C-alpha cells in the first residue's frame, strides 16, 4: 500500500485507479490511494486549543507531530466520534501536508476504471457535494469518492484563524 507507484496500473487500454474504501458514520467513502500514506490505529491524541471541534488534536507519528481531524465532526454527522476497535486513522498526504483522518473503519482497496465511476448525481449525503469527485457502486452500496484535499483545504485554515480570538485591537 505504501508503494505509490503501483497504485496506478494499466489494464488493456483502460487505466485503473486504486482507492481506499472506508466508512464514515453510516456512509461509505473512498479516497485515492495515492493520497494515503498509511493507516494506523488511533493513538493518544493531544488536544490543540484554538482549533475548530473537528480538529481532534495532534499525535506523534514516529517523531513527527501530525494533526488529526475527525471527518464525522467536520461533516456534522449524527453518529459522533465513538471509538471502536475498528476505528482507524488514515494518514493522508495533501501536498506537503500530512494529516491524520479518523474513520470508523477501513474496508478495502478498490480498483476502479473510469467506467466504474459515474458523475456525482444529486445524491443524498451528509456532506457538501463539492468534496465528491464521483460515485461508484460496490455490492449495491453507494461509495462516494472523496477529494480529501478539497475537504481540508482553505476553508479549514480560515476556520482555525477564526477560532483564534482576534488580536488585541
Amino acid at each position, binding site marked *: 500500500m505504501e508503494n505509490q507507484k503501483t497504485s496506478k496500473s494499466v489494464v488493456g487500454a483502460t487505466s485503473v485507479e486504486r482507492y481506499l474504501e472506508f466508512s464514515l458514520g453510516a456512509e461509505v467513502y473512498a479516497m485515492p490511494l495515492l493520497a494515503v500514506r498509511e493507516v494506523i490505529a488511533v493513538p*493518544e491524541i*493531544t*488536544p*490543540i*486549543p*484554538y*482549533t475548530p471541534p473537528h480538529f481532534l*488534536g*495532534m*499525535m*506523534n507519528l514516529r*517523531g*513527527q*507531530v*501530525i*494533526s488529526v481531524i475527525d471527518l464525522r465532526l467536520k461533516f456534522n454527522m449524527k453518529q459522533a466520534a465513538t471509538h471502536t476497535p475498528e476505528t482507524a486513522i488514515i494518514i493522508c498526504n495533501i501536498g*506537503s*501536508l*500530512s*494529516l491524520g483522518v479518523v474513520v470508523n473503519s477501513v474496508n478495502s482497496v478498490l480498483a476502479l476504471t473510469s467506467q466504474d465511476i459515474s458523475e456525482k448525481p444529486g445524491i443524498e449525503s451528509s456532506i457538501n457535494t463539492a468534496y465528491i469527485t464521483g460515485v461508484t457502486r460496490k455490492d449495491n452500496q453507494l461509495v462516494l469518492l472523496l477529494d480529501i484535499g478539497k475537504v*481540508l483545504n482553505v476553508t*479549514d*485554515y480560515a476556520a*482555525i*484563524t477564526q477560532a*483564534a*480570538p482576534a*488580536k*488585541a*485591537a
Partner: protein
Amino acid sequence: MDDFEKELKVGFLDEASQLITDAEQCFLNLESSKDDPSVLEKIFRLAHNLKGSGKAVGFTELSEFTHQLESLLLKLKKGELNIDSEIVSLLLLCNDHLRLMVDGLKADIDAKFDSTQLLSAIGAILNGQAPAKAVVIPSADAFPEEAAVAASPIPIPSTQDPFEALEAVVQNSVEAQVIPLPVAPVAQVSPKAPAPPATTAKVAASDESIRVSLGKLDQLVNNVGEMVILQTVLNQHKNKVQSALLQKTITQLSKISKNIQDISMSLRMIPLKQTFQKMQRIVRDTSKTLGKSIELHISGEETELDKTVLENLGDPLVHLIRNAVDHGIEDPKERAAAGKDPVGNVYLKAYHQGDHIVIEIKDDGKGLDAKKLTAKALEKGLLRPGQTLTDQEAYHLIFAPGFSTKAVVTDVSGRGVGMDVVRTNIERLSGEVQLTTTLGGGTCFKILLPLTLAIIDGMLITSEDERYVIPLAQVFESIRPQDKDVHFVTGVGEVLTLREENIQVYRLPTLLSRKLTPKPASDTIAIVVRTSEKPFAVLVDEIIGQQQVVIKRLGAELQHIRGFSGGAILGDGRAALILDMGELVSKTKPSQAKTSHLRGVA
C-alpha cells in the same frame, strides 16, 4: 552535460558565491583603504579567479564580464586610474551583477544575462581615462596563449612551441642586457629568505568540507532529538536499575548523547559574517542617498547562528540599520550644531550572553524623544487624550503598527514595513527586541536570540489535565502563591503581589480559551515571566519537571495560531504543545490593563 561537468559547475557557483561575499567587504573598503594594496589585490583575485575558472567550466558570459572587470581593476592596481567614489559605486554594481549572475546560474545553469550596460560603463572608463593608449579590450577569445604571445612587445621567433619561443627570447634578452648572475632570480631566494606565512594553524581549506543537504541535517537533528528524549527517560529511571554497570553505562551514554547533540546542533550554525557584510553596503548606500556621513563599526561577525534564524534575521536587521541611518543619525549640520562629530557612527555587534546571542544595533544619533512619541501617538489615535505613559512605554510606541516617527516618509526606511514587523519577525524566532535610548545620545536596539531553535530546555506543566511545555528561557521563576498574595482588582483582574511588586495574573486555561475549573491560587503554581516589557504570572496546575524537548514544527494548518512555538514529543511518546507565554498573553485582550488603549503595545 556529463556528471562531472555538472558537479564542477555547481561547485564553481558555490565557490563563486563565497568569493563574491568575501570580496564585498573589500569593495566597500576600497574608498577608505585606498592605500592598502591588499584590498585591491583581493578584488583583483576575485575577478581573476572567476574569469579563469568561469571560462574553464564553460560560463562564458560570466567570464567575459569578469574579464572586462579585471581590465578595470588592473588599471586601478597599476595606479593608472584613481579610486574615487564613482568607481567604487561602479565596482559595487559589478559585484551585484556578479552575484546576480551566479545566483541566476545556480537556478538555471543555462541562464543568460544582459551585461551590456555595465560593460559599456566599464568600457567608457577604460577608454575615457586612457584615451592615448588606445586600450584594446581583449575579447574573451584572448585567453588562448596565442594572444599572449601575439601581444608580446618582444619579437618572437616563429617556433612551434610558444613557450620555447618565449624562453629563447628571455635567454636572449638576459644575455643582451648582460645581467650578471644568470641565476639571479633564483639566487635572490636564499633558503633563509622569509618563509611563506606559517600555515600550520590555517583553517582547513574548503575542499575539506562536504556539502550535505539541509534535509539530511534536519533528519539527523530530529533523530538526535529523539535520542535526547530517550536519554532523559533513561536518566530518570537510572536509580531503579540494580546493576552498577548499567548505571555507569547510562551515565556515560548520557555524556556521549550530550556531545552528539552539541555537535549536531553546531552543524546548522553559520557565522553572521555574510549578513553583517551586507549591512556595510546598506549603510553606505543609504547614507549616500540621505547625504549623511556615517561609519558602520562591526564586531563579532564570527558569531554563529542557526541557519534558520540567520535567514529570518536579515530583513529585521536591514530595517533596524536603515532606521538607525535614516532616523537615528542626524544630518551633518544638525550634528555639528549639537557639538557632535559630523560623521555619525552606527555600531553592529554580536556576542553571546548566557543562553542567548545578542545582536546590538547602536547609533550615536539623536535618540528617541518620549514627548514627541507620545504626541504622535495621540495624533494617530493610538493613545487616549489625557493618558500618560512612562518614558519606557513611550519608547515602545515605535513598535506599534503604523507608527512612524518621521513626518516625511523617506525613500529609505519608509517602505511599508515598520518596527512592528521587526518585532514580530524576531519574536517568531523566539527572540525579543530590547530598546534603550538617550535623548541626544543615541539609540540601542538589542535583539536577543536563542542559541538554537531545535532543542530547548522546557518546563513540563499540567493545566486541566493537559500537559504543555513552557520554554525554560521564558520562566523567570515559579512559586506556589498563598491565597493572600493573589487579589482580584476591579478593572485589572487578578494580581499577584510578589515581594512588594504587583504582577498581572492569567490563568492558563483562560489564555488557551479552554474550560477553567475555579480553584484557589494556593492550589496552583505561578510561573513568572519577565521577558516582555511588563512582567506577568501564569497560573498552572502542576509542574511535572524539566526536560529538553525537540521543537517539532506544527503543520501548515496550525501555523496561523499564535501562542505556540511548536510541538514536542514527550518521554511517553505523546505529543504536547510548546507555549509561547508572551504571545499567548498578548493575543488575549489585555482587558483592563493600563495599556489596553494602546493598539499593539501590550
